């Protein structure tokens, strides 16, 4: 069977960036050097078939300071946070948390290989910021606006609308200003 995706080869001795390794280590609170490439995470990962770099190789690239290949990978955006990797790591590395931190770093540095995944996450957070709770219909409209993919899940509307499962108006909560303030303070603090 042909592979689902073409995996790339990376030269591990190319321009190692120690500050990158240190930063991810510090932010995730995980000791990356404990990874000895057993491959348990990759074998457990339900998304391995769609990853351009398998999760165990992401760990190896992190150890060798290969910032660019890691932050420009699809894998870090496709990780579904299912925590199979974390659960099965024999060295107790919270691999899913490392993947989370890589998404944070990729954002800061302006990388997002999977633009649609990022657009979905962004639309979700916009919705929380604006209404305090997620407004599903608004989230979809926002996502479609961001991506131009107006046909996304169009066929599901007729299944949901008659059941009253898609509200046309957001739920108003008193605390929506409090939520907006959380986002504003976050931007000001610049964590």
């Amino acid at each position, binding site marked *: 069977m042909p592979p689902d995706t073409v995996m790339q080869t990376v030269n591990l001795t190319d321009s190692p960036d120690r500050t990158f390794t240190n930063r991810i280590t510090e932010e995730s609170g995980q000791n990356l050097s404990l990874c000895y490439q057993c491959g348990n995470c990759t074998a457990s990962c339900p998304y391995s078939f769609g990853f351009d770099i398998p999760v165990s190789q992401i760990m190896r690239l992190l150890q060798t300071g290969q910032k660019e290949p890691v932050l420009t990978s699809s894998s870090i955006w496709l990780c579904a946070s299912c925590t199979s990797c974390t659960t099965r790591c024999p060295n107790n590395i919270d691999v899913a948390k490392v993947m989370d931190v890589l998404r944070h770093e990729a954002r800061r540095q302006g990388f997002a290989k999977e633009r649609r995944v990022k657009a979905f996450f962004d639309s979700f957070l916009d919705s929380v910021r604006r209404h305090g709770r997620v407004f599903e219909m608004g989230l979809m409209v926002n996502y479609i606006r961001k991506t131009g993919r107006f046909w996304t899940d169009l066929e599901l509307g007729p299944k949901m609308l008659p059941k009253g*499962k898609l509200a046309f108006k957001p739920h108003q909560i008193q605390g929506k200003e409090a939520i907006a303030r959380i986002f504003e303070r976050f931007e000001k603090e610049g964590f």
Partner: protein
Amino acid sequence: MTKHAYAYYPGCSGQGTSMEYERSTRAVCEALGIQLDEIPDWSCCGSTPAHAFDHTLSAALSGRNLGLAAKQGHDCVLTPCPSCLTNLKTAGKHISGDENFRDKVNRLLDEPLGTIPETKSVLQVLFEDLGPDWISEKVKRPLTGLKVVTYYGCILTRPPGLMEFDSEENPISMDMLMRAAGAEVLPYPLKTECCGASHGVARKDLVMRLSGRLLDMADSLGAQAVVTACPLCQMNLDLRQSQVNSANSAHYKLPIFYYTQLLGWAFGLPDASLGLDKLCVDPGPALRSIAANEDAA
């Protein structure tokens, strides 16, 4: 039996795409004498998009709700949704265990956090505090002969150090509750495999493959229904089942129940309180087969 009271965090999808989970959870808890005090003015936990964005922001979004629950006077929050559960638990543990992190989170909130309540899933309370024997005593209309597989999804029991509930590799809580309600639970080797999670919108192709595999396995085992405890899993398998069918040239017609819907049905609760009409794949044939099995017995 004394009435147990908990703070209750319904989660956003309970007001929309998983309204039948919300409705049946409330109905089942009421029938079992569990009092759910909804957290007043609760807000979104941020789900995966928040923790994929920033951990302090994510903890603040969950933290606000934990603070409101503490104000309510509760030391335990219940939620039906595994994604909310993970976020509330992660935030609670991190804030309680790390002063620096607590300070960072407090800088984002209107009011600083005090004692943080613990968080449990509704399933955990039904299984651990009440137990299958108590559940079976409530059954008026057993699910006789209904063959189901239980699908827990990824994060209800994982990672074990965080969730501290059931088994991370072979969970059995829903199996036991379904058996207590009279159903036949088939061994399902994909109990905790991922359905594709929230990528259904952005990368439907990937979800079609993962959810397709779950449906295929359930169907080939001869299951008449899949039982879930997660709004996202249920949506991928039920609402998207027609998409899975066209993507994989398949013809599944598997109803995907929330475990609370089947428990409520077995308790003889009115259909309207279980939201069975909200399911996309018709649950009628599966439910009618229970009645037929009873007649034959």
